[in-house]
């Protein structure tokens, strides 16, 4: 079931696998620790859409410490899907959620998740992956840049509904 397992020098192995129903409580708790907001309904909806349906193009992956003796807790998660947009664009993989347990950062968890979803996108037949990051989100900006992502040729536009 492992999507990927990577060993960081001097650290425990980090296993990455698809999310399971029993992980959602951990995902909700991790997200609440990171964002300060508990969103159980939102995460159950995300699990139903990205953890159970159309799994050949939707990827909801979680990372856990590989050699934990007790029940491993979730160290992080990443969610993405293959999207084909209009306006002539070819399908590509979009990463739209990534979170890592604050106490486990700088230990390769985010990198393991990123590499695992990149491999899944490759298996799905796309050759590019993209994401959108808020201009003031320095943590995510630094992470994605450190993973070799560069400014892409897309602009996000928005409009408030009156």
């Amino acid at each position, binding site marked *: 079931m492992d999507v990927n397992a990577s060993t960081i020098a001097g650290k425990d192995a980090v296993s990455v696998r698809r999310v399971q129903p029993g992980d959602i409580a951990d995902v909700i708790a991790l997200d609440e620790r990171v964002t300060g907001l508990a969103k159980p309904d939102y995460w159950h909806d995300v699990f139903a859409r990205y953890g159970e349906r159309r799994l050949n193009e939707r990827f909801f992956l979680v990372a856990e410490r590989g050699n934990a003796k007790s029940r491993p807790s979730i160290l992080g998660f990443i969610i993405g899907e293959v999207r*084909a947009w209009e306006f002539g664009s070819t399908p590509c993989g979009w990463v739209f959620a990534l979170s890592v347990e604050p106490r486990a950062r700088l230990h390769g968890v985010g990198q393991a998740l990123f590499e695992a979803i990149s491999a899944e996108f490759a298996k799905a037949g796309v050759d590019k992956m993209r994401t959108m*990051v808020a201009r003031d989100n320095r943590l995510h900006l630094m992470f994605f840049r450190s*993973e070799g992502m*560069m400014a892409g040729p*897309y602009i996000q536009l928005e409009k408030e509904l009156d």
Partner: protein
Amino acid sequence: MATRTTMPERVGDAAEIDYGRPAAPDFGPLARDRIPVRAMKEGDLGALIAIDRRITGRTRSGYFEHKLEEALHDSDVRVSLVAELNGAVVGFIMARVDFGEFGRFEPTAVMDTIGVDPDVRHSGVGRALLSQLLVNLGTLRVERIRTEIAWRDGDVLGFLDRCGFLPAQQICFERPVGGRA
């Protein structure tokens, strides 16, 4: 008996709701009146593929079969519409409602597909479609719509600019899968 007066707390605050004020500017009512827009149906697939082929020069049957399947059967959070002129489909628009991604958690609609038959461009078809989409999304209590577009796509950028879209405070990043650029 003392008269109770409601005082605004700040300059610009209204003491009470002014139900008589003019409606907010809407670019769509005229276009909507002239061009019928209706919900997408299974039988529209051929028209969607044909219009898209005329726009992009490619046949993307799989893409539209997938989109239509999703619109009609897979989700209760998609809004998919077509516009008709003289009984023929001349344009389409598709959006889905997201309850959070890219670090946002408010209900947002994502418009991912729009197309207008090149023969009827500049006839208000795109405006009619987008306007009706916004009306439908309003009933779903969606507060914002967004889209991602290639920066070189000047025609669509100009259209969306005229319809009131603005750049979001998000940066697009990309990388080849399986390796660095």
